[in-house]
């Protein structure tokens, strides 16, 4: 008798045998016992909104990419291809909920309402963060892989202590699942039954490394070992993502603890604007995923629903162009930091040591200016 990895009952850890999908590539609706009850209110209007969201997110992404190429931004981590994986869950969030994400969460930032002027400042290296976390209830973007998952769990524990009707969503990549922090976050979430949703955007790569370097089994299997239920979802299907997130949020609000969602998706662009994906993957692979485009699919679904696609597309384009213009202007006019800010916000109560350095720095700057 052999000892192998258990294959959990597919009804329990949903989607392990194949990601949950409700929108087929051609836009037809596939039935899903699990997800359908959570999509009853999604009519043509609601789907159109999700469509417009995705178009806007993509436009923001391509605009920022172009601005980086033009030297307006210093760096950009594109999310092209991951629009549904972000828009679906972002639109399942309540206003009161919090998001703890990484550096690639432009969709979340946009839909949470980040000010584009501030947002652009991160990627101009003008600031380390690009929105007021308390205003849009989204933690500053996080570059240390996986660190934010613990923050999300801690926030959720605190919300539970306060009896608040708030859920924390924490999102991270496939690569992040290898970091100790992410696994510790699963331990804590499970032990304290925290109202937290883990969203793993499995975009198949951690920079150059394909996901099989991190795991030989679906990432959605990971949480089961911690006693956390999970769903493996087609991350290019905005409806499936939306429904799965609703299930997870409902569970959290009902006091049923954490849920893990693996969004199976693909990073079509480079890791960042400094990356060269040709070194580690074939164009054919990218093409195959373009065929699964998250936006095209919704267009087809809307068509099938009888929507006036010309009008919808026009409306989406107007709003996307407007956003792109706004972002470009924000990037161009962003206010650079002044050097004296180096010394601000290190401590709540300023220290003599640092104020001394501030004085010395000022004196140095004026001595140089004086010399000119």
């Amino acid at each position, binding site marked *: 008798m052999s000892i192998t990895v258990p294959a959990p009952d597919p009804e329990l850890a949903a989607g392990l045998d194949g990601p949950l999908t409700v929108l087929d590539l051609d836009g037809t609706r596939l039935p899903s016992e699990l997800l359908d009850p959570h999509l009853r209110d999604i009519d043509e209007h609601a789907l159109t909104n999700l469509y417009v969201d995705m178009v806007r997110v993509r436009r923001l992404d391509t605009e920022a990419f172009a601005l980086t190429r033009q030297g307006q931004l210093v760096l950009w981590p594109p999310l092209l291809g991951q629009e549904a994986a972000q828009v679906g869950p972002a639109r399942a969030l309540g206003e009161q909920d919090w998001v703890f994400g990484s550096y690639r969460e432009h969709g979340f930032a946009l839909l949470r309402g980040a000010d584009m002027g501030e947002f652009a400042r991160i990627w101009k290296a003008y600031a380390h963060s690009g929105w007021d976390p308390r205003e849009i209830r989204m*933690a500053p973007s996080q570059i240390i892989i996986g660190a934010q998952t613990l923050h999300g769990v*801690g926030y959720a524990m*605190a*919300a539970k202590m306060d009896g608040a009707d708030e859920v924390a969503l924490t999102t991270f990549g496939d690569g992040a699942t290898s970091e*100790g922090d992410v696994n510790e976050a699963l331990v*804590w979430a499970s*032990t304290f039954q925290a109202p937290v949703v883990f969203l793993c955007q499995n975009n198949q790569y951690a920079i150059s490394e394909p996901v099989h370097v991190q795991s030989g089994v679906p990432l959605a299997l990971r949480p089961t070992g911690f006693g956390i239920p999970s769903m493996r979802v087609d991350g290019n299907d905005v409806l499936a993502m939306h429904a799965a997130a609703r299930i997870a949020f409902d569970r959290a609000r009902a006091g049923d603890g954490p849920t893990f969602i693996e969004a199976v998706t693909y990073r079509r662009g480079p890791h960042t604007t400094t990356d060269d994906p040709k070194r580690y993957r074939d164009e054919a692979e990218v093409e195959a995923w373009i065929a699964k485009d998250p936006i095209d699919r919704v267009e087809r679904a809307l068509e099938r629903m009888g929507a006036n696609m010309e009008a919808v597309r026009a409306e989406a384009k107007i709003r996307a162009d407007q956003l792109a213009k706004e972002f470009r202007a924000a990037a161009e006019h962003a206010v650079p930091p002044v050097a004296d800010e180096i010394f601000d916000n290190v401590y709540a109560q300023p220290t003599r040591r640092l104020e001394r350095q501030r004085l010395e720095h000022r004196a140095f700057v004026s001595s140089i200016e004086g010399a000119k």
Partner: protein
Amino acid sequence: MTETLTLAKAVNSALADSLEGDDRVLLMGEDIGKLGGVFRVTDGLQDRFGPQRVIDSPLAESAIIGTAIGMSYRGFRVVAEIQFDGFIYPAFDQIVAQVAKLRYRSQGRVSMPLTIRVPFGGAIGSVEHHSESPESYFAHTAGLRVVTASTPQEAYSTLRAAIQSDDPVLFFEPKGKYYTKGEVDRSIVRDLETANVVASGRDVTIAAYGPTVDTALRAAVAAADEGIEVEVIDLRSISPLDVDTVVESVRRTGRLVVTHEAPAESSVSSELIASVAERAFAHLEAAPERVTGYDTPYPPSAVEHDYLPSLDRLLDAVDRTLGRRNSRTDLDYSALTTGAAR
């Protein structure tokens, strides 16, 4: 009104009074609840304040700090315990890349009013990892305050200030002194940045903190027998250092000895000597001296008393600053340049 408390009990009282006074304060750590901590420092607190506010956490230091950060976002003031000095390193990333930087990263919009309690130091006859002094790592980290205490009163008053502070504070508790007693006035809450002159003298300044303050005070008494006046400064805050107070003292004494249990290399004593050399150069009459743990890992505790700063090592350093005969007077270093190292 004062009461006589051990240092451990003074910490316990500061925690209890903080929990009592502010319902956003909560405690988290390994074994701090039912057991009351491996040193019984949190004894009785879970019974009194409940398991929601005195939380026995799973065994992972990175997560203790990481989840405390999340709680800080909601306005909790978490007092996290790291069970022993040598177990803080798994949490290093969350401390230096998150706790220390979140205010800066967010342009002041996210506060981290976190207190991290760490029993530290040696001389307790224990096994590996239980006697370390890792404070210099955190002193080197911008955005953190690092404080310690030398008496029950200081422990009480400084810990209360740490918990009230909106800055993240590492509070290093001298575990070798947990059972020493002293008078504690619970109405005193201290600041987090000022050193104390705990003995006055005109000849030599000894700067110490935590467990070495006591040794320095004993050295002052012993030196007085030989007519040498030692001024002893309890630094209290390791980062930032109250360099002003030390400079003020060195202006008068012209001589400085810095002591701590941590290794010397790139440490708090390096910093204090460098700062004094920069700012009181003209007043220094002799080379500054250090009496610290040697630059080795903490040795088996059977020989820890040779490793740690001691009364005699301090007196020897005082003699060196005064140009009196000392253990290095006839020491021949010549073997070194030719021998051991290439």
